[in-house]
């Protein structure tokens, strides 16, 4: 047992900054008067910004820390930057909303910070124990956040999320136990050596399968998606926005790292499972979304379907030549998804009224006439989620499908493109309502909300025209 060195701390620097800052804020918040809680929001955002600065400074550094239990590499840095940016967006969306909905409370932002630290730890975990810790650290604050508005449906959402989430955690722990039983270790590298040293027991495969179930729950892949629509609908909208991006990113990066590092030897079995998971998620998510009339439920199913596309990147993970490109395409698509996703939720929040009003598709009728800029932004996001030019989503899908074809999964790519056509129908329904129906919507005009919507819309188009840097970052971010 050696004492931790400075290197160990440097590996986790952004995470540590954020954890310390969140703990400090817990104390500070007590002294902030009730009607000034937006100060906590600003302080939280500052903390994230500082951590983001350090995360960016870590680009290009590779290291391990704490007895190889956490890793710092291009992959974790990429994920951290994306997660921290999500945190900033999450706060920007909540800032005005919480005032408007009379739920401006300090703990909101602090819980968000804690959840964010869990997500970041997830991206850096090189040991299954850390994976589990991170999973709990990110989930528990989210359970609370889902119910934070104390409305009945929010509480239902929180409880549902908690119960099913606890169940999923159980799967993960049980999986870890089985893997430990099979290999005698929880370190990803040791598991890799144990698994690839020839014969491995069925225990290992079952353990990996159970882990997959747990992660599938987090990223809302079919058939582990049942909680998603209810939770997304019931939770306060900024929480949903943060959850549908952050928790998804964290789930995917953990899935990528654990499987690509520890289980390449199991790919003969698991690739088929992942194939089916991805195909099912794309098909069910998109088809069920067709019949939704509530925008939050529609976007929940859309988020499920999007998980299917990202999973596609992951199917050829055992193929040494294709895997790096495939995972890079998954990361690229995660960025595209995150940006468009936050923008979409920004528009939803702008239209939302108290008491769950303003959330039906019909409430979007006539938006283009009254608020053309907002309608254009929403159109851009919808096109991006369909995968239509000139948006980032299109470039992302192009990259994803190439990885699938490269890996020899043409069938999956065909399912992917055909379900994209299905998705066009429900995304376009939003556009139809905004542009082709008469209505008189009213919109909240909040600086940070408008800022988020504008910047994500511009990024969605601009980055699709000059995507080189993002391509480069994603392709060098693979360990």
């Amino acid at each position: 047992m050696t004492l931790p060195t400075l290197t160990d701390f440097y590996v986790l620097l952004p995470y540590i900054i954020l954890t310390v800052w969140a703990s400090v804020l817990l104390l500070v918040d007590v002294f902030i008067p009730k009607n000034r809680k937006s100060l906590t929001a600003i302080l939280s955002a500052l903390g994230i910004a500082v951590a983001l600065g350090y995360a960016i400074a870590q680009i290009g550094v590779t290291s391990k820390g704490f007895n190889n239990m956490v890793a710092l590499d291009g992959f974790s840095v990429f994920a951290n930057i994306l997660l921290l940016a999500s945190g900033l967006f999450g706060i920007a969306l909540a800032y005005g909303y919480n005032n408007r909905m009379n739920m401006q409370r300090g703990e909101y932002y602090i819980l968000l910070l804690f959840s964010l630290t869990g997500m970041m730890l997830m991206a850096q975990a090189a040991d299954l124990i850390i994976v589990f810790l991170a999973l709990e650290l990110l989930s528990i604050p989210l359970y609370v956040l889902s119910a934070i508005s104390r409305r009945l449906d929010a509480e239902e959402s929180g409880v549902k999320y908690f119960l099913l989430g606890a169940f999923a955690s159980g799967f993960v722990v049980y999986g870890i136990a089985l893997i430990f039983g099979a290999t005698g270790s929880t370190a990803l590298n040791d598991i890799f050596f144990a698994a690839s040293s020839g014969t491995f027991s069925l225990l290992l495969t079952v353990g990996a399968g159970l882990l997959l179930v747990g992660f599938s729950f987090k990223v809302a892949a079919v058939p582990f998606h049942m909680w998603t629509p209810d939770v997304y609908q019931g939770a306060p909208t900024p929480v949903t926005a943060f959850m549908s991006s952050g928790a998804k990113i964290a789930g995917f990066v953990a899935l990528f790292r654990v499987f690509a590092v520890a289980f390449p030897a199991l790919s003969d079995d698991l690739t088929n499972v992942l194939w089916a998971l991805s195909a099912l998620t794309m098909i069910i998510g998109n088809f069920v979304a067709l019949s939704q009339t509530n925008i939050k439920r529609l976007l929940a199913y859309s988020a499920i379907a999007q998980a299917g596309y990202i999973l596609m990147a992951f199917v050829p993970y055992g193929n040494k030549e294709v895997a790096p490109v495939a995972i890079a395409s998954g990361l690229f698509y995660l960025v595209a998804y995150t940006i468009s996703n936050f923008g979409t939720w920004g528009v939803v929040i702008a239209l939302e009224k108290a008491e769950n009003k303003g959330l039906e598709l019909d409430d979007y009728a006539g938006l283009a006439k009254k608020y053309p800029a907002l309608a254009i932004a929403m159109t851009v996001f919808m096109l991006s989620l369909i995968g239509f030019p000139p948006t980032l989503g299109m470039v992302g899908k192009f990259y994803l499908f190439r990885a699938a074809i490269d890996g020899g999964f043409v069938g999956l790519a065909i399912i992917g493109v055909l379900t994209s056509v299905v998705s066009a129908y429900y995304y376009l329904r939003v556009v139809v309502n905004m542009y082709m129906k008469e209505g008189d919507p009213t919109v909240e005009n909040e600086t940070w909300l408008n800022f988020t919507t504008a910047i994500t819309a511009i990024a969605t188009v601009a980055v699709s025209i000059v995507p080189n840097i993002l391509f480069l970052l994603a392709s060098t971010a693979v360990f």
Partner: protein
Amino acid sequence: MEFISQPLTLLTFFPLLGVLVILFLNAEQKNAIRWVALGTSLITFFISLWVFSMFDSSNPNLQLEAKYNWINVARFNIHYYLAIDGLSVLLVLMTTALTSISILCTWSAIEDRVKDFMAFFLLLEVGMSGVFLAQDLFLFYIFWEFTLVPMYFIIGIWGGPRRVYAAIKFFLYTMAGSILMLLAILWLGIYGNTFSVPDLVAKGNIPANIQLWLFLAFTIAFAIKVPMWPVHSWLPDAHVEAPTAGSVILAGVLLKMGTYGFLRFNIPLFPDATVQAAPWIALLATIGIIYGAWVSYAQADVKKLVAYSSVSHLGFVMLGLFALNPEGVAGSILQMINHGISTGALFLLIGMIYEQTHTREIKVYGGLWKITPVFGVFMLISALSSMGLPGLNGFVGEFTILLGAFGSNAIGNPWYAGISALGVIMAAVYILYMFQRMFMGPAGEITHHHQLKDLNWREIITMIPLIVFMFWIGLYPKPFFDILAPAVEKLLSALPL
């Protein structure tokens, strides 16, 4: 700076400048917006004339190339690559011309949300020019898909009563077709390590069985756009519901994107599959010619009649293309232009009368010839041009196509040409039957109730260029064939025939 000053870049993206200006205008300044849009489209048209003046028609190769590295990371090798050759130069000129004409025809027809309309229309022009000029598959795909977006809005916002249904059907149908092409493009990109079409053509050697699959994927995309029988059912809805300007562009340019796709991608990239598939395409084209004409005859709505006649006319274009001989291909490219001119003119005229009466039922008209003589003359010329009367443009195209198809080795059976020739007769039947019911005989119901006005000066100016070209191509088509010949010869020389 060098990037911007490339003639083809300028041609493609100049309308964006207009969009930008329009965005800063107040939505209430409708006339200012109209003038900006018209001015932009006219300048774009002049840029295309400038491009044409630099174009060397004796050179069969790609010219005025603008080629830059665009995305060359992550094993992508994507170029920003625009170029023009004999196959595309006429289509580009037609695109810029028809855009100006369409904008002119909306002057009084579009009163609602003029700002949005003009912005979408100019965006559409960017997409269309890009489709005809892009030589990189990725770039092409972006332009190709992008054209759907503004057209979707144009149909969905300013269309007829069933506009939303028609717009979504148009969008989904076309997207469903082109999405499989995306996979084929990706396969080619992996295979050739480039998306540049000339490089892929030069590399060639795609295994025959895979060629067939790729050919199929591209064919589905283009066949839906053309539209070929049996994937034409989006077209009547979209055409009928679209506002006049939308119909003109839809028939004039968007459909040609499909036939152009066959010409630019299917034939050079998959030569073996092309030769193999030629008889089948010819079969579908022939069915389309007869079917389209037959259904046209039965229509009670004049716009629907013209829409279905497009299915028939585009059947001729496809038949000529897959005759795979110089007469057939050159004839079919010319017929693409002809169809744009004639059908464009018919849609414009129908739009002009619809603006006054708000009905397109053939049976409520009658006796228009006496009431609106100028309108009648324009309609007669356009109708005759569409049905292929000798001396007008339609005849030249259809005759050359049939000549090519008759002697085609690729199709291998003169019967296709023989049956298709019936389509010309049927065209005469449905067109003249329509003309007779609308313009001859006693005055119909609507002509009693309305004080119908004849065409005004703006409408006449809109029509004149189209009429001029009907006669020009009809009487002296040689300059047009001279532009096409070298490029067509080069295209066909690579085929294993």
